[in-house]
């Protein structure tokens, strides 16, 4: 048999989709709702995961903090030597960081670093300087490198300011004084969560803004030797330095993901329930639950349709309904997330983390996600519709038609 027969069967199946309007609309609507839920959440979750991954890639292998009484306290510079001398440590550089604002009310992350040590770590956040800017030098004082968030925020402020190399910005210090900085560079970053609103400066200037005493730091960023086992180095640091809290990049990644995507599982569960309802609906509407559909299969067989013809019709029907429902769901999710900013949902998924996302919620779509969504939308519907039809199609038409 040629192509003509298949096109006739497809045409008959499409006719069925249009003629069984209530059934078709119910399945498409249910798929649309379930896919919208899944994709809206998934685009946010995937965005957060890739953002966290970028943040971790741009950060150190290990962060060493000091805890006293369960609280984080400044680290004395005597720790630097201990950390540096630990086996497996390539570089250990202190950081002073905290939050400040430029008088706009928005908190910005201020991080003071050792220009030489930190700048030598290729790919570290803040080192990818754009255009005519430059990274910090050892001798720099009250110079800053800013993330794109600062540029965007100042451009959108009540008194718009185009931040560029040479711009002077004042930060509000811990004791409400204003300290003026010169912008010497704007850096690019793959992460929106942690570096969008970041200001990098020298250690001394950061201490002045954040109220740290001389020779104290917030934490120590550690890069391990190539080939060293990260956990082993972390273990040595943890056991070798009293009061140390040692965070590996994996642990940082885990805590970041927990902070931002902890509730995605609940929504995925909701999606699963809705999808189950869709499958039940398709199953009921198929030959298994509908006398009319069952009899149609018997009639087609009696009139000379082969089992594969019947299955082909049901497959065309299911694929049409699934593709339509899933495509509408994905399209809606794209509009909802990327254009409307996922109102309500973003707040639910990201929780308090939303207030730390001045750059907006991170979003991402990958081909694998789209493929998975189509697969999980299509395959269950296909199975729910085709399997009962197949069972009827292999049963004698007399039994199916007369129900004997």
């Amino acid at each position, binding site marked *: 048999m040629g192509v003509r*027969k298949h096109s006739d069967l497809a045409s008959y199946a499409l006719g069925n989709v249009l003629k069984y309007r209530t059934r078709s609309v119910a399945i498409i609507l249910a798929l649309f709702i379930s896919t919208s839920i899944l994709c809206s959440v998934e685009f946010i979750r995937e965005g957060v995961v890739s953002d966290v991954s970028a943040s971790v890639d741009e950060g150190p292998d290990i962060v060493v903090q000091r805890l006293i009484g369960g609280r984080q306290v400044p680290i004395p510079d005597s720790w630097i030597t201990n950390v540096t001398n630990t086996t497996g440590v390539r570089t250990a550089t202190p950081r002073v960081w905290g939050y400040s604002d430029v008088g706009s009310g928005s908190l910005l992350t201020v991080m003071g670093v050792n220009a030489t040590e930190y700048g030598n770590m290729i790919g570290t956040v803040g080192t990818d300087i754009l255009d005519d800017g430059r990274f910090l030098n050892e001798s720099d004082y009250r110079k800053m490198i800013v993330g794109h968030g600062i540029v965007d925020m100042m451009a959108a402020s009540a008194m718009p300011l185009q931040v560029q190399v040479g711009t002077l910005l004042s930060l509000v210090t811990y004791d409400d004084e204003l300290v003026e900085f010169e912008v010497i560079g704007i850096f690019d970053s793959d992460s929106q969560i942690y570096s969008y609103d970041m200001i990098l400066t020298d250690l001394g200037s950061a201490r002045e803004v954040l109220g740290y005493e001389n020779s104290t730091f917030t934490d120590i960023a550690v890069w391990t030797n190539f080939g060293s086992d990260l956990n082993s180095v972390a273990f040595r640091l943890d056991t070798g330095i009293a009061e140390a809290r040692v965070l590996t990049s994996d642990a940082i990644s885990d805590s970041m993901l927990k902070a931002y995507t902890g509730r995605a599982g609940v929504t995925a569960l909701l999606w699963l329930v809705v999808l189950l309802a869709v499958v039940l609906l398709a199953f009921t509407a198929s030959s298994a639950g509908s006398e009319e559909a069952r009899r149609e299969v*018997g009639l087609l067989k*009696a009139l000379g349709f082969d089992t594969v013809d019947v299955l082909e019709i049901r497959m065309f029907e299911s694929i049409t309904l699934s593709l339509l429902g899933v495509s509408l769901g994905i399209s809606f999710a794209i509009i909802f997330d990327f254009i409307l900013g996922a109102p309500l949902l973003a707040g639910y998924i990201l929780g308090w983390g939303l207030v730390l996302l001045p750059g907006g919620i991170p979003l991402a779509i990958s081909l694998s996600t789209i493929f998975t969504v189509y697969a999980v939308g299509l395959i269950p519907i296909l199975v729910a519709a085709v399997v009962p039809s197949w069972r009827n199609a292999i049963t004698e038409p007399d039994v199916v038609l007369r129900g004997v």
Partner: protein
Amino acid sequence: MTVVIRTENVWKTYSQGTPRQVDAVKDVTIEIEEGTIAALGGPSGSGKSTALSLIGLLTRPSKGKVFLGNDEVSGLSEVFRTKMRRDTIGFIFQTQYLIPQLTAIENVALPLLCTDTSRSEAEKKARERLISVDMDHRLDFRVAQLSGGELQRVSIARALMNNPRILIADEPSSSIDEALTMELLNTLRTMVDEEGMTVVVASHDPMVLEWADVRHLMHDGQIV
């Protein structure tokens, strides 16, 4: 004349081996010649419809053999039996089994969708068949919009779409009045005379039995 349908000691048992086991057809042997109208008569539950299903290859005998022409068809695979139904047999079912969402013309064109005939050709032929049974004024009407007699005529038109050698009609007069029954029988007689097909009809209607060329009466699954 040539024998076109033959059954040899055919039995059909439903729910075999269970407490609900029923012998719907018992040891039935009949021969039907080409170009004749044969009627299976008898009361409800006598096994007429099951006998038709056996002849029409809609079910397999539990015992015995069914021949179409010289070919023993009861043992054929489902693929070949489906092909024979598609190419050789036309069905007029007791309850018509028309698809309610389709129009008259779409219902009639249905048997050709599983062949290599284009949809437009199938609908052209369906139109001709419907016109031949005086349904030209209802071509695009849905099943729900048709009367009992019109439904029966649509069913006849559909049964003739594959130019069958054998036409099987199960209680064709059950849902129509006497005048329509006469009209239906005349239509079938014309088909037999003009196209040389063989008609096997199951009915308990005396008018239909009287009209047939040959009568086989059934009772409790057996020919009496």
